[in-house]
């Protein structure tokens, strides 16, 4: 029992993330694209992380799965909600954080973490793509640039174009209209407007659960420094971003696995 390795598996709509813990240290992690077959891509992600950790896919693992389709994974020992895992993961990586914003591919979630690293409240925006990674990816395609270039361009904007924050489809039409204006709205202003739309939408979720320092931004979208900068402008203070923001929920799932190993089997 003592040698069991704690594994966290986070199945996102776009990528599947795995973290392997050895005691309190992250031994390995992996990020693979989520395929149509959830079980296969989850297995591939676990195998990749285990390979990096030089471990075998055997009975000596304790796997906690979270995210979309976590319940359908046959090889996990337990499933936990994404909010619970995010809280544990954020507390593990950044213990001072009390409010974390997770912007994933298809949803945005704001969580409040208590001093014990437990989830104390949360709010989710899941009714429209306009506050999510997929939306920003589509906008990058529309603007014919990479997400990284978008992020860079946003820093040079002198002002933000007005773009609706309530509907991804309308936002897309507005971007097209800005591009075709005479004279066209500068690209950086459109991007800054898009980022602001996402941020302002998520700020309402933050206000709903209550803003408390420190604040972290996690999830794949946290890699966009331009967007994170707008969050900082809106909060009026700096926010924390973990080194690999995509794996936070997987870290949390691994922490929960570790706790379950320590607790031992249920009597």
């Amino acid at each position, binding site marked *: 029992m003592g040698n069991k390795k704690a594994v966290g598996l986070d199945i996102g709509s776009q990528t599947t993330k795995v973290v392997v813990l050895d005691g309190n240290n992250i031994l390995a992690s992996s990020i693979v694209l989520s395929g149509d077959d959830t079980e296969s891509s989850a297995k591939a992600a676990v195998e990749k992380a285990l390979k990096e950790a030089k471990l075998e896919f055997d009975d000596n693992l304790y796997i906690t799965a979270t995210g979309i389709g976590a319940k359908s994974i046959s090889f996990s020992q337990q499933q*936990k*909600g994404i*909010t*619970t895992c995010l809280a544990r993961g954020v507390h593990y990586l950044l213990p001072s954080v009390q409010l974390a914003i997770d912007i994933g591919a298809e949803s945005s979630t704001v969580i409040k973490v208590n001093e014990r690293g437990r989830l*104390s*409240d*949360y709010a989710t925006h899941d009714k429209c793509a306009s506050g999510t990674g997929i939306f920003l990816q589509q906008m990058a395609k529309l603007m014919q640039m990479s997400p990284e270039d978008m992020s860079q361009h946003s820093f040079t904007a002198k002002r933000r174009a007005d773009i609706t924050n309530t509907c991804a489809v309308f936002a897309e039409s507005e971007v097209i209209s800005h591009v075709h204006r005479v004279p066209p709205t500068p690209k950086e202003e459109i991007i800054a407007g898009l980022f602001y739309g996402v941020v302002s939408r998520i700020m309402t979720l933050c206000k709903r659960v209550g803003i408390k320092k420190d604040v972290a931004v996690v999830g794949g979208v946290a890699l966009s420094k331009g967007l994170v900068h707008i969050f900082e402008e809106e909060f009026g203070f700096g926010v924390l971003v973990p080194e690999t923001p995509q794996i936070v929920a997987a870290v949390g799932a691994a922490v929960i696995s570790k706790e379950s190993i320590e607790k031992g089997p249920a009597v």
Partner: protein
Amino acid sequence: MITSEDRRTKISSIVRACRLISKMNPPRPELQKSEALYYELLASYYKRLLQAQEKGDFIAAHTVFFPSEVLYAMGIVPMHTETTTWTMALFLGDQAEILSAGAELGLVPEICSPHRGLAGAFYLKSLPRPNVMLWSNLVCDNTAKSGELLMELNDCPGFFLDRPFQRSKDEIDYLVGEIKQMINFLEKQSGKKMDWDKLSEFVARMDEHIKLMQEINELRKAVPSPFPFQGYLKLLTIDYLFPGQPEATEYLKTLRDELADMVKNGKGAVADERFRIMTLFVPPMYLTGFLEKIFQEYGAVSVVEPLFTLWMESGLDPSNPLESVAKKSFLIPESRGMYGPLKQQSLDEIVQSAKDYKVDGAMYWAFIGCRHTCATIKLVKDTLNEVDVPMLTVDCDLVDPTINPKEEIREKIERFFELLEER
């Protein structure tokens, strides 16, 4: 073309469904008698409506919270419109058809779905045509706008009962005046006279019903709590359809005695009670069974519903029946959140009930069509957070399943139970 035979079949189907369910074994044998009684009552309500339609008796359609005890005292057959809509949705799965008909009338999804549905049902002539339409702002703001359309659709006369926001002697007097005018209107339309002795008898019994519901609520404070998740819906329905009626007394007494036995024997509504939940506003009616199952899976039980079943005050006076009918409209738990300002007293009562019922967490069912109630979410959440009770808000609709997929609702509830477990 919908024939009168089709209309008969819709209501007949509700009667048949009630009878079928009452014959089935309820999930908890301890509540077998009250369960059977409940479905018999529901069947009898719609059977009476069917018979009235066949015999040409005077039918008054009325919106939710309307004082239908007045109709019973006049020998007029009541048809509770919203309850009939959600009963059709619950038992017959007919909501798509009636909501779509409501949309044809220009009623958008943001409008209260029971009202969209009932407008659609009348438009499709799926319900018996009433002789009069009665509606009110008591205690819901949506109903105030609904009646005229329903009157037009049914091509019948109608009466709007205006209930003031605040409770004071002057305002109760005003409401008494309104009820008197309504009685005059009904006497003229139906040719039936008000039986004041009967009304007094019903008022006395309504007071008894309030006390019985208070007793039931007291029993629900027990750990484990004996009342199943969907029980609240039955308490609502009994109060809506049978105010002051002897059959409601029988049901409430039977239920009280069964719950008392359960408490005495230490039996809870769920096998292993883990989470005691405060339910705010009403969960989707069409998901009642689905939600009951999730609650059972997680050992959760709804112990108190401050906006629907928590009666604080009784004291209706049979010697002043009209004043008592008016007074009851200020006592009903719904008046806390659905009509007029949300008072500090209401927030205090919510907090006190969280303590009294040993609540672990609260679920606010944010019915998108009830915007005036949804406006209170932040206030209620902040107030409950002050006493360390977390609150989940679930966007939903009472009748329309297209607003929020049930799997999404399940996930939100599961996450919330995890949060409670973590604490």
